[in-house]
């Protein structure tokens, strides 16, 4: 059917072209060119007359315009092309028709998928199971099986990630606990369980979870996932002295290809920044250190004011300034930063200002 239609369309096109090419001219005495030109210049002349009658141009202007038109007509006459079709052209045109049709069909054979039927959504029956395969039904099926064979490690391992995906973290944690009780614990399993516990706790890292993570990290000196959680938690609770080496060690495990490297790097800089600001909060015993820090902030400010920078750098500057010199100085930097950035960056700045109690007017 498809082929009949395709070939039919191709032939119809060729016939339509053939008819057009073979059509006889209506006016033998006048080429279409002459007719077009005559019509055009006639309408021009009428336009001038109409303008004259409507008082839009004066008689003298009309005469000038007509003279201009006459010159144009004379030039056009000189340049008119010859008429009549050359034999070669006719031959090429006629030969091109079957070539085009065959080329189109050939190309379609190469790139088309005539063998594939259409599959509109409404007409598809998702054969194989009468019942719709949803996450819930899948869980129910596996759960039913686990009641019969509660010591099947593979069953629990299949079920736990599904629970996680469905947001049933408590049950996921139970499943991982079962796995840990049934086989020798590994760093991965311990981290899995810790992950489930953390999720069940709305992201809070409980003592149990932390213990599991630390055990996993000790068990495997190369284990990344557990260390990631630990370093993140250390940064979150403000234990920056421990967080910095944790992140550094994590980064030392990277071979350079891992997708988590940027996250770890930003974690490291957050911990370093925290360390830096944390030192400021305490009385600085050594005056030289104060000078050093001040020098760094001023250096950053000078560079940003001169050359501009990323929104992250501006935020760092405003934050440091807020701690070092107070809100007024931070406000000045903020105004400058707001003038430098736009779009989403601007909104990020405004959010930070909100948090620091600065105004963005």
């Amino acid at each position: 059917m498809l082929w009949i239609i395709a070939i039919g369309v191709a032939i119809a096109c060729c016939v339509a072209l053939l008819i057009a090419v073979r059509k006889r001219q209506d006016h033998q005495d006048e080429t279409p060119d002459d007719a077009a030109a005559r019509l055009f210049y006639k309408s021009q002349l009428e336009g001038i007359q109409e303008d004259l009658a409507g008082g839009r141009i004066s008689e003298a202007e009309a005469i000038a315009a007509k003279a201009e038109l006459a010159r144009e007509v004379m030039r056009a006459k000189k340049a008119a092309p010859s008429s009549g079709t050359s034999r070669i052209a006719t031959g090429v045109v006629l030969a091109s028709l079957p070539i085009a049709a065959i080329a189109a069909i050939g190309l379609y054979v190469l790139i088309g998928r005539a063998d594939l039927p259409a599959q509109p959504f409404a007409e598809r029956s998702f054969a194989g199971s009468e019942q719709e395969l949803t996450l819930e039904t899948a869980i129910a099926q596996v759960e039913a099986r686990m009641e019969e064979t509660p010591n099947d490690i593979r069953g629990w391992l299949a079920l736990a990630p599904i629970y996680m995906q469905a947001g049933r973290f408590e049950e996921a944690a139970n499943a991982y606990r079962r796995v840990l009780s049934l086989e020798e614990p590994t760093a991965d399993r311990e981290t899995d369980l810790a992950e489930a516990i953390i999720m069940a706790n709305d992201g809070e890292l409980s003592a149990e979870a932390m213990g599991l993570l630390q055990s996993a990290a000790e068990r495997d000196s190369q284990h990344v996932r557990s260390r990631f959680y630990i370093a993140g938690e250390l940064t979150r609770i403000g234990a920056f002295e421990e967080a910095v080496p944790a992140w550094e060690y994590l980064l030392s495990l990277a071979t350079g290809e891992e997708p988590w490297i940027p996250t770890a790097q930003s974690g490291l800089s957050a911990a370093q920044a925290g360390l830096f600001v944390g030192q400021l909060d305490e009385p600085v015993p050594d005056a030289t250190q104060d000078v050093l820090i001040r020098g760094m902030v001023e250096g950053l400010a000078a560079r940003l004011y001169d050359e501009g920078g990323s929104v992250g750098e501006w935020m760092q500057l405003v934050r440091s300034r807020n701690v070092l010199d107070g809100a007024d100085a931070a406000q000045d930097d903020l105004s400058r930063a707001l003038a430098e950035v736009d779009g989403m960056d601007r909104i990020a700045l405004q959010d930070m200002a909100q948090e620091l109690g600065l105004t963005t007017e």
Partner: protein
Amino acid sequence: MITEIGHFTLILAFVLALAQAVIGFGFWRSGEGPARFVQQSAILQFLLVGLSFAALTHAFVVSDFSVRLVFEHSNSIQPMLYKVTSVWGNHEGSMLLFILILVLFGAGVAAFSSSLPRDLSTLVLSSQGLMVAAFSAFVLFTSNPFWRLDPAPRDGTELNPVLQDIGLAIHPPLLYLGYVGFSICFSFAIAALISGRIDAAWARWVRPWTLASWAFLTLGISMGSYWAYYELGWGGWWFWDPVENASFMPWLAGTALLHSAIVMEKRNALKVWTVFLAIITFSLSLLGTFLVRSGILTSVHSFASDPTRGTVILAMLVVLIGGAFTLFAMRASSLRQGGLFAPVSREGALILNNLFLATATAGVLIGTLYPLVLESLTGARITVGAPFFDLTFGALMVPLLLLIPFGPFLAWKRSDLVGVVQRLTGAIIAALIISLIVFAFLGFPVSMAPIGLAIGIWVMVGAVAELIDRAAFRKVGFGEGMKRFRGLPRSVYSTAIAHFGVGVSVIGIVCATAYETEIVTAMQPGQTIDLAGYEITYEGEQVVQGPNYTADQGQFTVVSPRGGVREMTSERRVYLVSRMPTTEAGINTYGFTQVYIQFGERMGETGRVVRLWHKPYVVLIWLGTIFMAGAGFLSLTDRRMRIGAPRRAKAKAKEVAT
């Protein structure tokens, strides 16, 4: 099967376009037969590509996920409207739309070709055929929308949620109507260069295509700007984003073309320059389309990530643009030069206009491409932001805007500047008085902004003054003047309306930029805040369920300074399939002024970060563009071409007559 038929008809259209280009360019001097062939072929291509587009739309409507494009950009729960707009809400489909409009315009030329010199129409259609062949080859071999999946996936993914919006559904077709319309001007330029003939008929044909494309492009850009304004939630209406610049450059060049085509039409002058502009305008359209479509703009690297697509794009740009310029370099000198004119004349004013617009285009082009070139050469990533564009573009626009009212007052061929200034004195005084009244009435502080406003008012008053001057009320009295006023040609009205629209947009831009108020704050339910006289109360939030998204909807009550009370909602949506969050800003319009609320992140137990903007007269920005586009369409209805009569000739003719 319908999908496969669509695939086949697209292939057939490609082959016919190729034949059309080869036969047309090869035998344009060889008489009737080839001419008829290219005409018929152009019409057939429209039918074939139309079928193809309909087939793809059908696949989206019935959610046939065995078509890869449908799977990637639609799903079974997506509302029907967005199933349809998904057809062109992606790279492959939008290229097919581009081709559809290309062949539609080609068929238009073919259908009306009986009133066109045969060699000209054949060459124009050959050039169009070449473009159709190039674009459909690009689509078929590198971005095929009919690619099938076997086995078919169960359900699809989703149209990018920010594109699920009626504004963006009509923005691309409008933009493409503009871009592709300029392809006809381009083809006419190619035809003129090859045949060496540019006459009045040429100008007459180029004019409507330029006007229509320009008007569509104006609407398309304006639509895109309004969409970005309300959908992206930043409260801005123009970002000098490379994607925006990509559509703005052809508009600037097209505006220049529009004006230089007038000189050519009326005075048979500036021919070579008009041909050059026609080539430039379409080249910029192509460049814009491809910068956006190839993904070069987001990063130079995505260009390299798909080597075939990138190479084909490059080859097409080189062949079409490079070929056109080579042809121009070889043949431009053989074109007949047009009439002469004095520096102070309508022609002179239009050249000045072209000079400013061309420079502005170059400025935007440099600002857009420089970061790309730098990144590909040195790897350094820089952004050229609003400050660069505001400075370069703004500095060029101020003198241009000041000069706009002078142009239409100048006579063709040679004019008298002092006389024009005298005739414009009334307008200058009126503009000053109105400006002063506006400042006093609105109580604006003294700054640069009132000067901007005054420029906008000057452009508007100047446009009206031209109409009044042409009616010559002072000379012929009020009654006769009104008669003449009504009898003015529509092209005169359209000039005045378009220039008036420019003034309207300028005022909108100045007001919205200089006098907007922005507040970012955390609001608790029940809290009221004052925003430039508007009392805005945050009533609370609720969860709303959309067809394919859920949203946190903030509810606000706004009491305007005049006491009117209106409800307002602003949403943060999460789309179900892609899990992508979007914002739906709340916008209330008071006259030309808008209050704009963006509902932000949660703050504490019940609070929310809320961004509120008061944007005085911001609607004028888009209203002005509607004036401009409307003027373009009005001018289209004035089909007759007029020869501009020079002044001195009048005196001579009188002598002869007496």
